[in-house]
């Protein structure tokens, strides 16, 4: 009988995250795919000097962007806002309208967070390379722009390309739809996005799911992330209200 990778709580699943860890957070941008409960647990756990890897710098907590009912749900901003992030690697770090300033934009302006801005296709491909044992690859993306700074350039097929390096994460915090206890994972519709590649590139891959099921309950042809990529599973509280930015700010961290 396969052993279960199910953890009893998000707090247990993130208990060993050390200061200085790099953490890949899966949401594309809105609340879909956002590992709300892992993020809150890490905020409570207290780890500092984190490197965040994510598509955005956290847009929903200040703006409610894409949130049903206009709720402002928490996102990775809770870690930035509380001073626990030293570096962010992202593609879409700030709110499109300059009038809305996210905690990450504020922190970059203050100089308290180092920002590495990466084209989206390059970011996901760098994580894919890390999971796939490819130390470096060439891409046409970013040639002739600020992104090429410090990178090797090389012509293939008459066109310049940049050499990009694999990007590993220490932890992945990924929200998915369902997992079986062995760690096979499926995602719901458009929220697949960054989830699978983040689980594959992380040394410790943690998935936060709506439901956990038994091995065999997910059709083997439908499994998106096979079990070997998943180390820990936590289930989102069924009756727990989603954590809103307002609710979060009323909490005190139990550090």
């Amino acid at each position, binding site marked *: 009988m396969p052993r279960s990778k199910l953890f009893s709580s998000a707090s247990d699943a993130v208990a060993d995250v050390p200061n200085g860890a790099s953490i890949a957070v899966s949401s*594309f*941008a*809105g*609340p*879909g*795919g956002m590992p709300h409960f892992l993020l809150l647990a890490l905020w409570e756990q207290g780890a500092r000097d984190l490197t965040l890897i994510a*598509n955005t710098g956290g847009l929903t907590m200040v703006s409610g*962007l*894409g*949130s*049903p009912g206009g709720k402002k749900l928490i996102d990775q901003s809770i870690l930035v806002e509380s001073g626990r992030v030293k570096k962010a690697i992202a*593609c*879409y*770090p*700030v709110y*499109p309208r*300059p009038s809305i300033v996210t905690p*990450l*934009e504020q922190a*970059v*302006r203050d100089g308290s967070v180092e*920002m590495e*801005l*990466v*084209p*989206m*296709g*390059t970011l*996901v*491909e760098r*994580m*894919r390379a890390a999971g796939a044992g490819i130390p470096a690859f060439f*891409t*046409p*993306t*970013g*040639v*002739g*722009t*600020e*992104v090429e700074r410090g990178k090797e350039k090389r012509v293939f097929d*008459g*066109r*310049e390309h940049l050499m990009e390096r694999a990007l590993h994460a220490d932890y992945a915090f990924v929200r998915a*739809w369902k997992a079986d206890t062995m760690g096979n994972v499926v*995602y*719901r*519709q*458009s*929220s*697949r*996005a*960054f*989830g*699978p*590649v983040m689980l594959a590139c992380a040394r410790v891959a943690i998935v936060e799911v709506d439901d956990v099921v038994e091995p065999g309950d997910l059709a083997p042809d439908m499994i*998106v992330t096979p079990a070997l990529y998943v180390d820990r599973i936590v289930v989102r509280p069924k009756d727990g209200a989603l954590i809103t930015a307002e609710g979060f700010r009323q909490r005190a961290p139990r550090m």
Partner: protein
Amino acid sequence: MTTGKPRLDREAVAARAARELPDGAVVNLGIGIPTLASQFVPAEKQVLFHSENGVLRFGPLAGPGEQDEDLINASLQFLVPVPGMSFFDSVAAFEMIRGGHVDIAILGALQVSERGDLANWRLPTRAVGNIGGAMDLVAGAKRIVVAMEHTDNDDHPKVLSDCTYPVTGRQCVSLIITDIAVIEVMDGGTRGRLQPKGLLLREVAPGWTVEEIQALTGARLHVASDLREIQL
């Protein structure tokens, strides 16, 4: 001064951009005016919209009450299910873009140069910008069309001999659709394989003259022999 003259509204620019979408095309729309283009595709055309979060083929947007946080596009518009739709991850979404499987991308712009250089990711006045998927699109999509206002909020030209803002890509734009003109980048979009030959004014908004458009443009416009009014 031409500033006060009536220009096309955002919907009209989007409608003109939608006419660039051939039947059967795989299309990616950027945030802003481009996202509006999807509603102007005629029903008899099959266009497969592609989104960076991993969606192919979406149609109408979801109304209030139908919104599902797990059914959005990269502009965070809520979608509804359509037959033939598929979901995949963002790695696959960018394989499609970089691999040349997206036929056309319509993007917004801060500036476009006469060589087809595009600047659309950072205002110099802002410490941080959003690259998002734009650099991959301009590197990988087969054809890049810009849809934007012709001038910025201070009425400064956005079509220039050279971009002064940080660029998204070089020699990538083929066509510029604005609220007063449609301009072709001659031999544009080859990303260095051919040297672009400058800008060709092809269409003008109703009521606008070539001279008025040239006055709001920071690069020299050649004029098409078959210059005509923008048709929507």
